[in-house]
């Protein structure tokens, strides 16, 4: 079967020799390389490309650019590489592309959803606020699911995206957004001064309007040729980066611009090394916005049928892609520029049915040029309606305000309501727009960042003026001359003839969301006066094109209805992004392993070799437990606990935060930052310290060792390390800057191997040189510098298990080697490796608290039973005043206590809530909660720690932990469950 081609021989700039094949809804089509999906389909005579959001009306492509509201398609290479909601007017065709239409069932031509169109009188703007309320449950159960299914456009991908994306931070002197006449001129002007320039354009080719506007001459040449010449000059300059297929999507604070570069979406078989898209995060000294203008449609009855499109789009399809959008084309315009489309098409041999111009006195030059070609020009006329089911077939034309309707057969209708300056980036930069009343448009007012708007987006209409403005913006001395046939101003905004307030026609303002002029009037009738309310009530401008075509029309219709001037009604703020940006692009490298750094200790690989299961603690991977064959977690933990208490256990404590506090005022500083007193601590000794914030609540804890008079080795919790150091630095730099002390993070300098248990000393002794490890010489809470396996080490005699314990700190690179030797000796003596879970159990048996688990930022040292750690003698420390506030010294505060379940086999749930009266109806009075709960293998029963109101006064009391299916009785005890006398720790 041969298909009719709408390709015009000799027209356009594509090369017929290079073709690509693609499918659209299962049918195969041929395109030229360089075609967009829209131009390729149009070349094949296909106009029907989509269905609208609400009424499922048949829609064709309206534009040839990023403003496209109708022709949204699904583009796929394969099942995983599938992208919904792509603008057919922007997507390049590539060989093998699988294109599907959206929001229709079963087919694009026959869509059952179109029933909504018949029901549209019911579905007026905001109708859903007024109904679906009865019965009460029906909204969520019945109505909402129906509405949700009908709404939405494309179908989200079902598979993980196999493509990758990249990021680049960049700096430049000048960033130029838009490579049309103005942007190219400005970029060249700037580049010639030697400035670092980045020039971006969203299209595949530079030129902007010159791509369709073949009548403009610049420097004596056709504009397009001039543009390509400027491009090659720019590309040859080392200080210039030209990025095409790149959208400047967001203009953020302090001249920070986000760019999205599409690298592979146009390639048939992209190399695996290529990122699909690249995010550029650019900091520019100056931003030149040369973003042009967008042609408006005309708002009249049934202005949305396939075949109806913007005049400039038809011109681009002809002059760039060599495609005629129809065989008998009508034009409906309020602006001279549309005549050029008719003239170009006529020259290409296409019949122009008529140019209908709602103005009585259009530009004489264009009218006479059109008439000279034999085109019928009807001035002071309007198109009142159109007909045609899946393609426009006729337009009804009448003189303004008069009778004499005439129906003219057409297969395409080109519209132009004039041009709206693209002030999106300027608005995003937080510049305030000013209304140009004479020309009915918003223009950039004062630029509040280092930016400047030039050309059409700045309302500069006259080409010589534009060129001068652009050259000046670039800062150079470039001089470019040019001339064009018409300016960009004029046209109309708001409803056209026949779509006024007295009518009930569907004159679309926002195509994608099916917002009509009458919807906007309804919003006003219902009391919506601010444009923001009107927008939200009607959803005008909230579709995926974000109002690029609809905003000004909506505003004008609302202003007319309200009897106000346009600026009084306001303008909605333009938000980033200018066009939608793929999440993958914004994420760039941050996925998989690079999503968030997984910090691994120097011993990690050794632990993994020994079969460790790991858990996430902050960014760290910590060994959780070491299951042997056939063991589950509880069996492994029970074995580890038992072995540690009976023999010894070996534990990787490297993640513990470490801060070296050095200087003559080190002790003085620690006195201020911890609740304890430090000047009494002698070199070679350690002390457990508690840190509170100024509010008196526990912030962190850890053992602090004094190595010499002026050097402390401070440890923090694993998760607390960065914030504790920041907290210390804050006080040091801001409140106590005169203290002679410095802080250095040494968390990662040391690999820390904890050996705990009765045989701990036996295990490490042979590896340690230069230190007497006996109880007498090196008692509990000692620290010393020594040599372990020939490397300088810091040895702590500390315990978080209640057993005799050592923590060996060796320089990190030696950690694995020392660990292996210790494990070898440990194995020989019957020791085990243990992880964080066993560590938790062992410390709970001893009633040692874990900040962040047993405390939560609302617990004072006294609440935790550590009142002894708060110095009563110091005149000052951080937290001294906060601790004295009324609520912190009141009776009945929650205090940490032990809990023993009446049934010793019952292990409480961490997070279980505690009550005194289990039979109280809800809401119950909760006394506190279980913070830690474990099976204690050592004790042969469960144990728990809890925060309980007035807990220390409740010793022996029975309380209850009501669970979903049962209530657990518990007895309040002290927190030390094992070795209450504490003898074991001293060996």
């Amino acid at each position: 079967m041969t298909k009719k081609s709408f390709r015009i021989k000799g027209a356009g700039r594509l090369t017929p020799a290079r073709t690509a094949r693609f499918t659209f809804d299962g049918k195969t089509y041929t395109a030229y390389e360089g075609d967009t999906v829209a131009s390729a389909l149009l070349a094949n005579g296909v106009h029907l490309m989509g269905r609208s959001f609400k009424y499922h009306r048949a829609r064709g492509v309206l534009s040839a650019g990023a403003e496209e509201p109708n022709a949204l398609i699904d583009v796929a290479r394969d099942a995983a590489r599938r992208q919904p909601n792509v603008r057919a007017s922007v997507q390049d065709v590539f060989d093998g592309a699988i294109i599907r239409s959206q929001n229709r069932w079963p087919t694009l031509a026959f869509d059952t959803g179109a029933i909504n169109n018949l029901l549209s009188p019911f579905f007026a703007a905001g109708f859903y606020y007024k109904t679906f309320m009865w019965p009460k449950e029906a909204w969520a159960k019945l109505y909402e699911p129906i509405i949700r299914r009908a709404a939405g456009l494309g179908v989200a991908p079902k598979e993980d995206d196999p493509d990758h994306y990249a990021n680049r931070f960049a700096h430049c002197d000048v960033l130029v957004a838009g490579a049309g006449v103005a942007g190219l001129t400005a970029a060249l002007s700037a580049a010639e001064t030697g400035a670092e320039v980045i020039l971006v354009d969203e299209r595949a080719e530079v030129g902007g309007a010159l791509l369709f506007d073949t009548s403009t001459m610049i420097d004596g040449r056709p504009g397009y040729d001039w543009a390509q010449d400027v491009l090659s000059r720019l590309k040859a300059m080392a200080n210039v980066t030209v990025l095409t297929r790149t959208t400047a999507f967001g203009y953020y604070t302090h001249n920070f611009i986000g760019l999205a570069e599409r690298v592979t979406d146009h390639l048939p078989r992209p190399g695996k090394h290529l990122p699909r898209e690249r995010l550029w995060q650019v900091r520019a000294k100056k931003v030149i916005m040369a973003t042009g203008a967008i042609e408006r449609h005309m708002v009249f009855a049934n202005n949305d049928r396939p075949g109806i499109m913007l005049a400039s789009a038809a011109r681009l399809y002809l002059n760039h892609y060599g495609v005629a959008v129809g065989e008998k084309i009508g034009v409906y315009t309020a602006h001279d520029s549309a005549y050029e489309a008719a003239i170009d098409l006529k020259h290409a041999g296409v019949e122009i049915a008529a140019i209908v111009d709602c103005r009585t006195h259009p530009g004489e030059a264009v009218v006479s040029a059109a008439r000279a070609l034999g085109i019928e020009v009807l001035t002071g006329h309007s198109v009142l309606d159109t007909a045609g089911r899946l393609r426009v077939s006729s337009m009804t034309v009448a003189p303004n305000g008069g009778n004499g309707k005439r129906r003219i057969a057409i297969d395409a209708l080109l519209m132009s309501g004039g041009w709206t300056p693209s002030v999106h980036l300027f608005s995003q930069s937080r510049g305030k727009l000013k209304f140009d009343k004479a020309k009915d448009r918003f223009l950039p007012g004062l630029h509040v960042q280092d930016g400047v708007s030039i050309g059409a987006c700045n309302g500069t209409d006259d080409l010589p003026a534009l060129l001068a403005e652009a050259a000046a913006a670039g800062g150079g001395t470039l001089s470019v001359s040019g001339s064009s046939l018409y300016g960009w101003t004029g046209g109309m905004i708001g409803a056209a003839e026949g779509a006024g307030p007295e009518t009930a026609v569907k004159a679309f303002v926002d195509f994608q969301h099916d917002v009509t002029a009458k919807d906007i009037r309804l919003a006003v009738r219902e009391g919506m006066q601010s444009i923001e309310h009107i927008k939200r009530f009607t959803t005008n401008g909230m579709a995926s094109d974000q109002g690029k075509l609809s905003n000004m029309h909506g505003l004008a219709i609302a202003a007319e209805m309200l009897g106000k001037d346009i600026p009084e009604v306001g303008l909605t703020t333009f938000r980033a992004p200018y066009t939608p940006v793929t999440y993958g692009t914004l994420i760039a490298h941050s996925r998989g392993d690079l999503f968030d750094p997984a910090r691994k200790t120097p011993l990690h690989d050794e632990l993994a070799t020994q079969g460790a299961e790991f858990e996430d603690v902050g960014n760290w991977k910590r060994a959780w437990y070491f299951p042997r064959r056939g063991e589950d977690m509880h069996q492994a933990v029970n074995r580890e606990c038992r072995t540690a208490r009976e023999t010894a256990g070996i534990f990787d404590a490297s993640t513990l935060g470490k801060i070296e506090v050095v200087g003559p005022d080190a002790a003085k500083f620690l006195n201020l930052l911890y609740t304890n007193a430090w000047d009494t601590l002698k070199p070679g000794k350690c002390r457990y310290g508690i840190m509170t914030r100024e509010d008196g609540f526990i912030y962190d804890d850890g053992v602090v060792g004094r190595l010499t008079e002026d050097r402390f080795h401070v440890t923090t919790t694993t998760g607390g390390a960065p914030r504790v150091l920041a907290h210390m630095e804050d006080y040091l730099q801001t409140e106590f800057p005169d203290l002679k002390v410095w802080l250095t993070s040494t968390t990662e300098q040391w690999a820390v191997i904890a050996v705990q248990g009765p045989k701990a000393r036996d295990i490490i002794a042979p590896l340690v040189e230069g230190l007497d490890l006996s109880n007498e010489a090196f008692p509990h809470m000692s620290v010393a510098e020594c040599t372990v396996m020939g490397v300088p080490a810091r040895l702590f005699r500390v315990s978080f298990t209640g057993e005799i314990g050592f923590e060996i700190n060796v320089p990190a690179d030696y950690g694995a080697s020392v660990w292996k030797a210790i494990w070898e000796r440990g194995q020989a003596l019957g020791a085990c490796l243990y992880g964080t879970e066993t560590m938790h159990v062992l410390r709970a048996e001893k009633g040692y608290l874990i900040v962040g688990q047993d405390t939560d930022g609302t617990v004072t040292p006294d609440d935790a039973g550590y009142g002894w750690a708060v110095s009563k003698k110091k005149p000052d420390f951080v937290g001294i005043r906060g601790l004295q506030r009324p609520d912190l010294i009141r009776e009945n505060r929650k205090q940490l206590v032990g809990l023993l379940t009446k049934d010793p086999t019952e292990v409480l749930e961490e997070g279980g809530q505690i009550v005194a009266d289990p039979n109280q109806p809800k809401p119950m009075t909760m006394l506190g909660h279980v913070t830690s709960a474990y099976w204690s293998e050592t004790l042969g029963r469960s144990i728990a720690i809890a925060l309980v109101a007035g807990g220390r006064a409740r010793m022996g009391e029975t309380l209850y932990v009501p669970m979903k299916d049962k209530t657990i009785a518990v007895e309040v005890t002290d927190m030390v469950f094992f070795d209450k006398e504490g003898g074991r720790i001293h060996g």
Partner: protein
Amino acid sequence: MFLIKCPYCGDERSELEFRWAGEAHIARPENIAAISDEEFAEYFFLRDNTKGVAYERWRHIHGCGRFFNAIRDTVSDNFLLTYKAGLPRQPVPGPQPVTPDAPEGGAA
């Protein structure tokens, strides 16, 4: 993403390198142990939260590590001055830069 001139580095650097550290020139009372509950609440909790020209602290945490002070317009987010910690409250440099109105636009 702000561009912030660190007074120690003398360089404009990305906000990514900095941490905001609250309002500036709130000194910890020297006799903190002796102040009243009200005074403590004032010191620790109450803030001006200025709309307009505000004094604040930043730390160049992923740079030179220093805390410093800044004067910033909290409507435009423009920095008017940054200066080293320990210096007294600096006058607002003139002339006043242009402050855009807070956008009136809405969201979804």
